[in-house]
């Protein structure tokens, strides 16, 4: 009985955000004190498919940015984790990797902003990408450090002894061994960039309108239906990722 009650409460707690955001997205003239909307409209959802829709452009921009960050950080992190593992100062490099990952993204953005301005990257996608990589790359490096254990190195050496070229050893031995962790890193760095608002907002000075920036803009304009549609769009990729791989979301460096 207690177990059922607890399960019900958890379902209620976690389903309510989706229900309320869904209602807001299709509501029309929903004003206080009405508990439910007086009318429903699919206009905000229908307008999504219009060619000049800002939300759809934001979705594309966010997907492109988060996808690029995920691929670059995972690829770079894999190579860097190897370099760190083989360095004489591995522990120091590991500690250094916590520096940008440890600071709140908005504070990091505030600190590096003068240099982003000097590099003429302020307000550009390149500036936001650099800022996001500054957080995602050390995160990926820390997460992927276990790919380069002594066992992995021994497997690599064995493959080379048996006649593999370095490229073959990488493709046939190391990458298959590291694949589960690479997939996790790809997911997590994607989400890191996908969820970001503070760093993007500060570095882009509001010009790179990703979905999170749009949610904030719509909230500021008191446009609850569009803010709700943008919020639901933000929930979509993580939901698909959760369905694809639950454990990939929980692993921490």
């Amino acid at each position, binding site marked *: 009985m207690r177990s059922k009650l607890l399960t019900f409460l958890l379902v209620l707690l976690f389903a309510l955000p989706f229900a309320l955001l869904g209602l807001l997205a299709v509501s029309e003239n929903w004003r206080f004190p009405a508990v439910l909307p007086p009318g429903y409209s699919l206009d905000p959802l229908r307008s999504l498919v219009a060619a000049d829709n800002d939300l759809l452009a934001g979705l594309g921009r966010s997907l492109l940015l988060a996808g690029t960050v995920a691929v670059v950080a995972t690829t770079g992190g894999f190579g860097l984790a190897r370099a760190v593992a083989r360095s004489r100062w591995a522990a120091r490099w590991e500690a250094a990797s916590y520096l940008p990952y440890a600071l709140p993204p908005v504070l990091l953005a505030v600190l590096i902003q003068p240099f982003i301005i000097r590099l003429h990257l302020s307000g550009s996608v390149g500036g936001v990408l650099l800022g996001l990589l500054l957080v995602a790359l050390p995160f990926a490096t820390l997460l992927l450090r276990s790919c380069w254990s002594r066992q992995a190195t021994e497997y690599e050496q064995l493959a080379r002894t048996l006649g593999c070229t370095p490229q073959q050893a990488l493709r046939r031995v190391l990458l298959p061994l590291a694949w589960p962790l690479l997939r996790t890193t790809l997911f997590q760095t994607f989400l890191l960039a996908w969820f970001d608002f503070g760093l993007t907002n500060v570095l882009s000075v509001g010009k790179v309108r990703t979905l*999170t920036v749009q949610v904030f803009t719509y909230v500021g304009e008191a446009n609850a239906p569009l803010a709700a549609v943008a919020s639901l769009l933000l929930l979509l990729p993580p939901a698909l990722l959760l369905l694809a791989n639950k454990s990939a979301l929980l692993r921490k460096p």
Partner: protein
Amino acid sequence: MKTTNAFLLNLYGLLVLGLPLAGLGYALLGSVGLAGPLAGGFTGEYWRALGTGSGLPYAALYSVWVAVASVGLSVAVALALVLLAQPTLRRPAVVGLLYVPLLMPSLVVGFYLFQLLSRAGWLSRVSVGLGLTGSLQGFPELVQDGAGVGIILAHVLLSFPFLTLLFQALYQETRLEEYRQLTLTLGASAGQFRRSVAVPVLLRRAAPALLLSFIATLGAYDIPLLLGRPYPQMLSVYIATRLQRFDLHDLPAAYLAGFLVAGVLLGLIAVLLRLTRRARLL
């Protein structure tokens, strides 16, 4: 190969150490009038103003309060679930439910809680519908309030499921169920097992993750921006707001705040690294 590794690490060092440290250096120079658009020579004016102005210390105290309350409440809920509802937590459907908040960007949680808890929000409407309150003013102020209730609730909603999953994993990893049966056999009560065995073991093992949660809440930006008031502000909002003002005279004070907050957070991270190493040894 060695040259490639060295080149890669130098480039990496330039990005992850060089850029943030240069930012910290620039913030320090900016706070003493040696850098920034209005740099006019060395001055200790902004550091001296720290002792007289209440903005930064108040923002720091407010952030600490929010972080302590959020992490404390999340830990309490997660521990209660793990220690009092073990059979429920072994059901795969319930575990699946606990993953749901991991899908939610904090900005979306902030927007959702604003729509739910504000005086014109959904709970207030239900309360009017049930006759519990008669008007907007009759409903308690739960968001954009002085005590940060909305901000704390948002952080609890985001972190208690993660901590529950963490504590549950630790409960199984440290074989606490077997210890429970052992302590009960030796005559202890279930409450004594929870207080004297389970809670200390779980908290000690989870200490690095708890400190990380504390640091993340301390530097939170999205949620306090939506659910907080213009005064008091949490640290990240306080700093970002001052840097984005049109009045350039606010910049040195904002650089000073950024420098100090980053310094404190880096100190906490050093403690975290030490705790992580100790936890690995346990």
